[in-house]
């Protein structure tokens, strides 16, 4: 008799895309994950720059001019926004990704995050200085 009882487990439907909009938290999660496309895109941009650099001065300088086209500037503007979002979201989870223990206590998360921001600002200034901008 027991065989007659059909089990019908509840299968929760997960729509492919719409679930992202169900909660702001999901949207933030997706924004964080999607930054990887722009991080990858910038690596490809650098790869092209290296290829042009290897081809010689003419080719490289033509590449720099191409970067200055409206499309080139818009492309980099979008990359910059997502790169900044990646930085902020990456730093904000550092206390969870690598908690630091001192004796019995854990170092407060705020200190770890703040240290990352301080290091980031210092490093960015050093890079701008070395690049001859500052």
């Amino acid at each position: 008799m027991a065989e007659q009882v059909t089990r019908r487990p509840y299968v929760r439907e997960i729509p492919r895309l719409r679930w992202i909009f169900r909660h702001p938290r999901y949207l933030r999660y997706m924004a964080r994950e999607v930054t990887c496309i722009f991080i990858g895109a910038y690596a490809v941009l650098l790869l092209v720059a290296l290829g042009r650099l290897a081809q010689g001065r003419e080719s490289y300088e033509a590449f720099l001019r191409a970067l200055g086209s409206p499309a080139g500037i818009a492309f980099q503007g979008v990359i910059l926004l997502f790169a900044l979002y990646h930085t902020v979201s990456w730093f904000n989870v550092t206390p969870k990704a690598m908690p630091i223990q001192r004796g019995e206590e854990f170092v407060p998360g705020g200190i770890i995050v703040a240290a990352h921001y301080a290091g980031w600002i210092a490093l960015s200034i050093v890079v701008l200085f070395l690049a001859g901008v500052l």
Partner: protein
Amino acid sequence: MPKSNKPIVWGFFAAGGTLTAFVTPVLVVLTLLAAVGHVPALLGYDRLHALAAHWVGKAALFGFVFLSLWHAAHRLRVTLYDFGVRSDTLVAWVVYCLAATGSVAAAACLLII
């Protein structure tokens, strides 16, 4: 204990995430400055060529491209799964192969500079 390559895959992902979090924004600012006509001294042909000709510069540029691509590949793999693409093995092959191809191309460019 079963052996797994997860720590290696994840290690490069985390290293790439950290490196790009610290460095990518300021690099984009540099290339944007070059794009609008204020080419930073470092991005002039002679300076950048000299940097890429030195082995330290080669290592730094290769490391940045490789870790950025690996980070993007791994995160894209996980994200595609969340978007409902369930063929994870195929996705993993495609994205890691793309990252590897880009890295080899970067190495090839750097070696002839």
